[in-house]
């Protein structure tokens, strides 16, 4: 049943391409088909793994909100890069078997490189555009990009969890679209736009539109090639602890840092000036 839906969806996607809808990967210099984010909507990375776009309202049209499951993946472009992926996620698309090996796929810009500052050491993951838990796609090269561990785990996974658990609980459908943004001819995406809306309840259960940054704190990435290096520390860069609620920053040894609740605590490496520019004030006790 799933294969039949995929064949129909692929046929519709091909027809759409032939009619000029376009299915090449999105260039950051212009919004692509059905993509609601424009470059000016996306601020520079400022320490959070994602940023909300357009008040979290996805750019789906009414006709796209269907209660029939399907999934579509764009053909790779001339550089071998992934394009937009879209699915109407229902329980019938979700995996029934354990995830298989995906190591045979080498997405554009792929590098095997490790850093001590990265959770799990490896900088890059083969990152599913539409997560395995949603549509059960394993080694589908049209659905795998070179993504940082940070983007994969801190950025995309929480949204995939939200969609997957909602679908499993309600047996409703969620329209879900992932658009990788490649700047110029870069082989590594700058980030991905995630849009989702639950169908049967018109977005009452799930509704978001976010941009997730394909970056890794502490590592500098050359998005043209995927090469990377450790970020150089200047003399005035230090470790700080942020209270994202009170907008105060502390030295790690400050008693005020120890009492910050988990929800409001964030570790930061960088300069005092950068924090001040982001609206943070120094703690009056430890005077960082």
């Amino acid at each position, binding site marked *: 049943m799933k294969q039949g839906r995929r064949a129909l969806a692929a046929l519709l996607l091909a027809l759409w391409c032939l009619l000029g809808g376009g299915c090449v990967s999105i260039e950051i210099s212009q919004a692509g088909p059905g993509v609601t984010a424009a470059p000016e909507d996306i601020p520079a990375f400022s320490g959070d793994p*994602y940023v*909300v776009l357009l008040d*979290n309202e996805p750019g789906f049209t009414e006709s796209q909100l269907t209660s029939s499951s399907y999934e579509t993946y764009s053909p790779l472009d001339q550089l071998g890069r992934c394009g937009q992926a879209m699915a109407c996620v229902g329980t019938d698309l979700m995996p029934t078997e354990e995830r298989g090996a995906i190591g045979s796929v080498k997405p554009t810009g792929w590098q095997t490189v490790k850093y001590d500052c990265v959770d799990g050491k490896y900088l890059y993951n083969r990152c599913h555009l539409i997560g395995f838990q949603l549509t059960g796609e394993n080694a589908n090269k049209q659905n795998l990009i070179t993504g940082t561990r940070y983007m994969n785990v801190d950025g995309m*996974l*929480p*949204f995939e*969890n*939200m969609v997957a*658990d*909602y679908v*499993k*609980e309600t047996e409703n459908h969620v329209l879900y679209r992932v658009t990788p943004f490649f700047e110029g001819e870069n082989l590594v995406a700058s980030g991905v736009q995630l849009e989702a809306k639950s169908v049967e309840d018109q977005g*009452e*259960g*799930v*509704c*978001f539109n*976010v941009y997730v940054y394909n970056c890794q704190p502490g590592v500098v990435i050359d998005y043209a090639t995927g090469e990377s290096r450790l970020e150089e520390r200047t003399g005035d860069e230090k470790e700080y602890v942020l209270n994202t*609620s009170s907008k105060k920053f502390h030295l790690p040894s400050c008693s005020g840092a120890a009492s910050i*609740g*988990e*929800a*409001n605590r964030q570790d930061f490496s960088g300069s005092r000036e950068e924090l001040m520019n982001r609206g943070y004030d120094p703690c009056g006790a430890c005077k960082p």
Partner: protein
Amino acid sequence: MIAVVCVDDRGGMLFNRRRQSQDRVLRGDLLALAAGRPVWMNGYSLGQFGPETGDLRTAEDCLDRAGKGELCFVETTDPAPWLERMEGLVLYRWNRRYPADLYCTLPLEDFVLEERREFAGSSHECITREVYRR
């Protein structure tokens, strides 16, 4: 008043004015825990519950209105400002990471953990219930 809150791994409650998750087994567990006591909640939370359920009381200011020994199921407000009204807390942990823009900032060090229990939900592999008293 005994607050009842569902949180993810980072204390998140809500994203884009929507609950992070829901689970019918959790709702049943909450009603069983209430054991006939009133359970207060706002209109948004009431939408999760069917008509056959227990003594549910709805008010937008439910955190102010829930009385002694009564439960208050809170989804859309950080209950921390009502700390002084609380006799206890029931914390359900999804054991998952979800996006969040509203967090529960209750200081758990102000409570005493009385019971911790894990159970499988209808769509969550493992939900943890923690019961605290002040």
